[in-house]
């Protein structure tokens, strides 16, 4: 079930330069949300029509709380960052499929790159088994470090080497000699491509959360497709809708 709600902002903080953490009080969305799903967030400014898809970072089911962590990337997210406790944001959600939680893996890598780190927080809480979070950051602002260390081992890579392994998430995995049965990842395209190749090479299962421009967010407009390996059941062509069939795909279903 999907809901449109006007959610109350309980708290908003800048947790790293340009990165904001937002706790929202929802009516139904938090209760139904699963890790890896996202919400459409709407601007108040009437010149910006389209929803901004933002992944669910953390769920406080008891208090119907939803945490989003996002980068002020453009005008819309900049607008969001200006609102504080007591103000509201209109949301539609929960959207998308989320990560599969029932695969029974013994040990998994949860890999987040940049602004792909946030969804790993709730995933690390809910996914059963042993978890190693591998987070890739540009510099030393290791946002969500505490949250990620609670339910999993945390390994860090930074581009500038200011913390953890100097390099990317795969460098960190190699440097630390880590292994796992499967990969659950979210982050920039090049990282996902590298992980897909790595998983194939290692014969690991791999689940990737993809990004694309969205209009409807619910599977109606066909804006947000990715190429699929086979003809997709819904589209009847080699395209899958990221908003509805994803954002999480088994790496071997899709082309990157």
């Amino acid at each position: 079930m999907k809901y449109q709600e006007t959610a109350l902002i309980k708290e908003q903080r800048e947790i790293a330069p340009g990165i904001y953490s937002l706790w929202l009080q929802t009516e139904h969305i938090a209760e139904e949300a699963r890790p890896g799903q996202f919400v459409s967030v709407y601007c108040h400014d009437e010149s910006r029509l389209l929803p901004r898809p933002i992944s669910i970072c953390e769920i406080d089911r008891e208090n119907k709380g939803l945490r989003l962590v996002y980068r002020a990337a453009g005008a819309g997210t900049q607008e969001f960052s200006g609102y504080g406790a007591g103000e509201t944001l209109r949301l539609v959600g929960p959207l998308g499929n989320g990560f599969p939680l029932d695969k029974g893996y013994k040990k998994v890598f949860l890999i987040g790159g940049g602004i792909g780190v946030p969804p790993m927080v709730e995933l690390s809480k809910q996914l059963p088994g042993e978890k190693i979070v591998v987070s890739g950051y540009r510099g030393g602002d290791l946002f969500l470090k505490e949250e990620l260390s609670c339910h999993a081992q945390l390994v860090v890579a930074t581009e500038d080497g200011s913390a953890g392994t100097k390099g990317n998430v795969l460098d960190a995995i190699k440097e630390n000699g880590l292994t796992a049965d499967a990969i659950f990842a979210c982050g920039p395209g090049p990282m996902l491509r590298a992980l897909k190749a790595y998983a194939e090479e290692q014969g690991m299962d791999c689940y990737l959360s993809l990004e694309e421009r969205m209009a409807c967010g619910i599977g109606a407009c066909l804006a947000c497709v990715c190429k699929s390996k086979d003809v997709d059941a819904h589209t009847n062509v080699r395209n899958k809708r990221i908003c509805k069939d994803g954002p999480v795909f088994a790496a071997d279903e899709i082309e990157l």
Partner: protein
Amino acid sequence: MEYKTSVNLAGVELKNPVMTASGTFGSAGEYGEFYDLGDLGAVVTKGVANVPWPGNPTPRIAETRSGMLNAIGLQNPGLDVFLQRDLPKLKKYDTKIIVNVCGKTTEDYCDAVERLSDADVDMLEINVSCPNVKEGGIAFGQKPEALEAITKEVKKYAKKPVIMKLSPNVTDITEMARAAEAGGADVLSLINTITGMKIDINRRTFAIANKTGGMSGPAVKPVAVRMVYQVANAVKLPIIGMGGITNGDDAMEFILAGATAVSVGTANFANPYAAKETADGILAYMKKYQVEDIKELIGAVR
């Protein structure tokens, strides 16, 4: 007072004038997760062709000030899948079903129209502004002779009323409307999207992969209202007005300008309840001004 919101399009009675704009509402009742689609006058499907189309590369959309560009490229699963899988889902709702048809050649259109004529749908809307068609890439929808000819052909195969959907990318919309009327169209719908472009100045490339895209949303509303007004004064056919409608007040502009029905498109993306709220808003307007029958308002501004 009892308020009559029903309108008649070429013999098809809609419970209210609000429809959905093709391509913005899916084909399988996606928005039915938010409200009962039976609250709408009609649902118009995403454009469907005789065979599946893969559409364009991504990015397919870009936001613009109070509008958006799209170049989906008419991705669709093809008529067979539409008829077998999507249509039954739509039939569950107590609303009229209008199938939007696209094609590359006259034969494509006629093939699709013929097969749809035996299906349980109420009307056919012919999208003649596809980017890649015969005649050296110039769309059927930009030359009056071509439009009249394809309308005539399609009408030969259609056993349902035919709506011809007009492109706004023309010098004189009334000339196009007259051509469609001459070809035998039962209803006209307008406007389709206005061709636009956005450049990503940081990546120094086009914001959408197709370079150009179709502009829609509130930004285009004044152009759409103008064209509906012009067409309403040029032909006798009923008009379905669209382009930037977000609520009942917007819809009333189109109805007062001469539209018998209206479609809500891009606004669905900004608010999943937009089409339903538009229907509610029209009724609220009628109540506010104590207008008993919506028909009294069609074309009332002259």
